[in-house]
C-alpha cells in the first residue's frame, strides 16, 4: 500500500480514537457514535445499491430487525451484549435471505417495491406483535456490561468505533475480492456474468444477505446506543435517509459511506436551527450561481441546463427567509437533495471531490504492469494435449426453437468435431444467433437436445454450461465496462476460487494463494491476446478492436474446450482483421474447438475447417469452405434467385 494511504489511515484512526478525549461533550460523542453506526449499515447498503446497482427500500426494516433482535434478547432473556449482537447479525441475515430469495428474481422497480413492502411489513409487525416487541411502548435497554463493568458513554463509543473499523476492513476485503468483482460484473452485464460462470441470481442474493448482516450489526449497536427503541423509528423516512446518504456520500467507496452518514445524521440538527439553515441556503445559492456564471462564460453548459439548479437554490434560499421553522419541511429538503444528487452529483461528494482534485493533479500514466515480467508463464489451455476423441465434441440434435408462431430454429442438427474451427453462416434472420443462445443456455430449446462431450446440457443454466467448458463472446461486446481489463478476465477465473467468505474476510493463506494464481493466469491471458500494456485500463475506454480481444481473453479464462465466437469481426476495420484471424488460429492451435458465427466471408472462409449454412432456421449446406461458396443453394440464399448464372 502506498505511503499516502497509510498516512491517511493512521490519521483517521487517531482522529477516531482521540475524538472523545478532545470533545468530551456527551452530546457530540453520541452524535459521532450514531454516524459510525449508520456508516456500518451504509457499507452494506452500498454493496447492494452501489455495486450491484439495485434499489433497496427495505433497509430500515432490516435495521429494525437487528435492533429489535438485540432489544428483545436483552429484555426477555437478559442475554449479554456479546451474544445478542451476533444473534442480531444472524437473525437479520436470515431475514435478508428470506427476502432476497424471492425478491431478487426481479429487478429495478419491482425490486424497489418488494423491498418497500418488506420494510412496511416489518414495521407493522414490530408494532402489532406486542407480545414479543412490546409494540408502541418500546423497549428500554441498558449499556452492555463487560466483565462486571457497565460501559459508560465514552467506553461504548470505543466499542462502536472498533466494530466500525472492523466492518470497514471486512467490507473492503470482500469488495476487493472475487466477490466484489462478481457484484460489479452482474451490474455491468448480467448476461455476460452468467456466461462466464458467475450466477447473477446467486451473487445478488449474497450481496443482499451480506448487507442484511451489516444492517443487523448496526441495528444492534443502535439499540445499546440509544438505550430505548420503538417501532416508529424504522420507517420509510429512515430508509430514504439511508439511500440519500449512500448516493450523496458517493457510491462504491467506504469514505462515501462515512461522509454520507455524517451528512444525514447532522442534517436534522442543521435543519432545526433556522438561522444556520438560512446562511447555508444562501451560501449554496450564491455558490451555484457563481459556478453557473463560470460555466456560461466558459460555454461548457447551456442556459437551459443551468436554469434549474440556479432557480431551485435561489428559491430555497428565499423560501428559508419566509419560514420560522424548517423542521416541518425537512422531508422536502431530503427530497430536493435526492433530486439534486441523482442528476447533478451522480458520484456523490467523494466523486465530486475526486474529479475536482483531478484537475490539479497531472494524470498518472498507468504503469504498464506486466510488460517487463519475464517470469510470466505463457498461457496454455489444459486441453492442448488432450487426446481428441473420435466423436463430435458438440452435437445439437433436432433442435427446435419456437417463439410463438415463429420457428427460429427448425430441427437443426449440428456436429462439431474437436480441434476444428467450425463456421456458422447464413443470411439475416437465419437463426445463427438463436443457435448460439441455445448452445449457451440463454434460451431453452422448444425441442431437441444439445450434447457436449456426450453429456446433455439441454436445459442447464448459462452459468453451469459455462463451467462445464463452453465459453462465448458476444456480437454486441458485453464487457464489464467499468472494470479494468484485468478484472474482466478475473471474473471468468472466478472458478479458481474455492475460498468462502470467511477466507476472504480473514485474508487466509488459502485465499491469498488462490488470488495470486488467478492473477497470474489473468496476466498470461492478457499477454496471449496482446493486451498487457492496457491491463489496468477500464474496459470501456479500450479501442473497439482491443475490446474484442479482451472478450476472447475473458472467455478463455473459463479454460473451455469449446469457444463460441459471435460475429467477432463486426465493427472491426479491415486493418484489424488479420489480427483477429491469427488469434482464432492461435486459440485453435491450443486445442480449443471453435464455433465461429460471421458475416464477413473472407474471415469465415479463410479460417474455418468446416462451414454450416443456415437459412430460415434450417441447415441448407455443410462442408469445406470452398464447396460451400460454390454451392448453388447457398448462393441463392444470399443473393436471391437468378444470381447463380455467374
Amino acid at each position, binding site marked *: 500500500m502506498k505511503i499516502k494511504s497509510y498516512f491517511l489511515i493512521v490519521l483517521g484512526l487517531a482522529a477516531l480514537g482521540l475524538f472523545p478525549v478532545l470533545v468530551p461533550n456527551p452530546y457530540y460523542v453520541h452524535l459521532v457514535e450514531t454516524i459510525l453506526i449508520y456508516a456500518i449499515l451504509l457499507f452494506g447498503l452500498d454493496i447492494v445499491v452501489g455495486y450491484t446497482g439495485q434499489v433497496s427500500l427495505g433497509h430500515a426494516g432490516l435495521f429494525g430487525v437487528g435492533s429489535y433482535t438485540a432489544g428483545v434478547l436483552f429484555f426477555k432473556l437478559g442475554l449479554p451484549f456479546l451474544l445478542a449482537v451476533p444473534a442480531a447479525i444472524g437473525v437479520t441475515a436470515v431475514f435478508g435471505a428470506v427476502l432476497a430469495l424471492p425478491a431478487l428474481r426481479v429487478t429495478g422497480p419491482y425490486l424497489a417495491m418488494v423491498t418497500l413492502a418488506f420494510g412496511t411489513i416489518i414495521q407493522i409487525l414490530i408494532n402489532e406483535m406486542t407480545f414479543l416487541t412490546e409494540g408502541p411502548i418500546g423497549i428500554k435497554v441498558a449499556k452492555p456490561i463487560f466483565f462486571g463493568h457497565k460501559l459508560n458513554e465514552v467506553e461504548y463509543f470505543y466499542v462502536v468505533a472498533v466494530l466500525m473499523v472492523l466492518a470497514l476492513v471486512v467490507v473492503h476485503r470482500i469488495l476487493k475480492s472475487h466477490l466484489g468483482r462478481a457484484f460489479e460484473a452482474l451490474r455491468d452485464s448480467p448476461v455476460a456474468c452468467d456466461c462466464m460462470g458467475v450466477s447473477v441470481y446467486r451473487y445478488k442474493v449474497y450481496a443482499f444477505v451480506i448487507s442484511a448482516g451489516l444492517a443487523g450489526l448496526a441495528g444492534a449497536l443502535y439499540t445499546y446506543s440509544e438505550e430505548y427503541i420503538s417501532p416508529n423509528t424504522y420507517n420509510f423516512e429512515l430508509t430514504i435517509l439511508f439511500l440519500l446518504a449512500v448516493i450523496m456520500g458517493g457510491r462504491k467507496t467506504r469514505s462515501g459511506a462515512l461522509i454520507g452518514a455524517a451528512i444525514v445524521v447532522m442534517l436534522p440538527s442543521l435543519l432545526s436551527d433556522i438561522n444556520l439553515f438560512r446562511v447555508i441556503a444562501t451560501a449554496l445559492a450564491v455558490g451555484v450561481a457563481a459556478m453557473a456564471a463560470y460555466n456560461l462564460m466558459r460555454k461548457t453548459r447551456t442556459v437551459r441546463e443551468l436554469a434549474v439548479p440556479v432557480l431551485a437554490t435561489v428559491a430555497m434560499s428565499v423560501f428559508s427567509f419566509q419560514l420560522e421553522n424548517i423542521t416541518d419541511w425537512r422531508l422536502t429538503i431530503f427530497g430536493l437533495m435526492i433530486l439534486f444528487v441523482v442528476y447533478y452529483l451522480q458520484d456523490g461528494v467523494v466523486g465530486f471531490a475526486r474529479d475536482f482534485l483531478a484537475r490539479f493533479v497531472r494524470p498518472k500514466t498507468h504503469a504498464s504492469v506486466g510488460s517487463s515480467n519475464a517470469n510470466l508463464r505463457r498461457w496454455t489451455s489444459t486441453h492442448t494435449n488432450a487426446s481428441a476423441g473420435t466423436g463430435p465434441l458438440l452435437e445439437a440434435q433436432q433442435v427446435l426453437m419456437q417463439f410463438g408462431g415463429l420457428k427460429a430454429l427448425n430441427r437443426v442438427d449440428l456436429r462439431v468435431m474437436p480441434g476444428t474451427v467450425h463456421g456458422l453462416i447464413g*443470411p*439475416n*434472420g437465419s437463426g445463427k444467433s438463436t443457435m448460439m443462445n441455445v448452445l449457451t443456455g440463454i434460451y431453452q430449446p422448444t425441442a431437441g437436445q444439445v450434447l457436449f462431450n456426450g453429456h446433455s446440457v439441454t436445459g442447464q443454466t448459462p452459468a453451469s454450461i459455462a463451467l462445464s467448458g463452453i465459453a462465448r463472446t458476444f456480437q454486441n461486446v458485453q464487457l464489464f465496462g467499468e472494470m479494468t481489463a484485468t478484472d474482466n478476465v478475473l471474473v471468468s477465473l472466478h472458478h479458481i476460487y474455492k475460498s468462502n467468505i470467511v477466507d476472504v474476510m480473514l485474508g487466509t493463506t488459502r485465499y491469498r494463494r488462490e488470488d495470486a494464481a488467478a492473477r497470474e493466469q489473468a496476466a498470461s491471458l492478457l499477454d496471449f491476446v496482446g493486451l498487457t500494456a492496457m491491463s489496468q485500463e477500464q474496459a470501456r475506454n479500450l*479501442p*473497439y478492436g482491443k*475490446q474484442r480481444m479482451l472478450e476472447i481473453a475473458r472467455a478463455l479464462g473459463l479454460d473451455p474446450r469449446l469457444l463460441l465466437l459471435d*460475429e467477432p*469481426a*463486426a*465493427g472491426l*476495420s*479491415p486493418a484489424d482483421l488479420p489480427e483477429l484471424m491469427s488469434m482464432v488460429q492461435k486459440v485453435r492451435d491450443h486445442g480449443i474447438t471453435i464455433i465461429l458465427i460471421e*458475416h*464477413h*466471408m*473472407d474471415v*469465415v*472462409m479463410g479460417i474455418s475447417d468446416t462451414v454450416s449454412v443456415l437459412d*430460415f432456421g434450417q441447415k441448407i449446406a455443410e462442408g469445406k469452405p470452398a464447396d460451400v*461458396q460454390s454451392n448453388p443453394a*447457398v*448462393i441463392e440464399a*444470399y*443473393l*436471391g*434467385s*437468378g*444470381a447463380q448464372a*455467374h
Partner: protein
Amino acid sequence: MLTIENLQAGYGKVQVLHGISIQVPQGKIVTLIGSNGAGKTTTMRAVSGMIKPTAGKITLAGVDITGLDSHQIAKRGLAHSPEGRRVFPTLSVLDNIRLGAFVRYTKARPQGDIESDLQKALELFPRLKERTHQIAGTLSGGEQQMLAMARAIMLNPEVILLDEPSMGLAPILVEEVFNIISRLKGEGVTMLLVEQFAAAALKVADYGYVLENGRISVHGPADQLKDDPAVKAAYLGG
C-alpha cells in the same frame, strides 16, 4: 429528392459508415445492396433519424434534415419501413395503415383525402384488404411486410425508405413484394431500397450502390451492376 453526402454514423464506439454519398432522384428507385454488417440498415436509420449521424449531410426535397428527430423527419415527408417491419402488434391492420397517415390527420402535412388513399392502398395489397380487422401481431411475415409498406405509402411521402423487405420471407412472397415495388415504380414513387437479395433488387431498381464495410465500393445503373462480378464478391468473398 433525397441527397446523402459523406454520411458517417455508428453506434457508440463502433463507426459503421465511413462517409457514403447517395443520390435518390425523384421518381426513381435506387437500391443499396451489400452483405450483412456492411452498414445498409445503419444508413437507413441515420437518414430517418433513428440514429444521429456523426458527420455528413442529408437533404430531403431541398430541406436539410440532418440530425433531426425521426418524427420531425416524418413530418417533412420521409416514410421509413424499417428492418423487421415493426408493425404495431396490438393494433388492427386498418389502424396500422391509418397511423401511417398520422401526420396528415394532424395536418402536419397536407391532409388530402385520407379515406380514398386508404382504399387505394387496400387495392394495392389485396391480402390486407381481406383482413382489415385482424390484429397485426398475428399476421404472417409476408402480410406484415405488406402492412409496413402500406403504412409507409399512406404518409404520401416524398421518399420511401424500404429496408430489407424480403427478410425472412418465403421466395413466393418475395416475388409478390417485388411485384408491388414494380407497380409503385410505375406510379412514380421515389424510393431507396435496401436489400440483401441483390439480384431481385437490381432487377427492379433504376440505379444501385454497393456498400462494403461502410463504404460505397461500386455504383451504377442497375442493369449494368447486375452482371458485375464485384457484386458477388461483396457478398460471398473471394
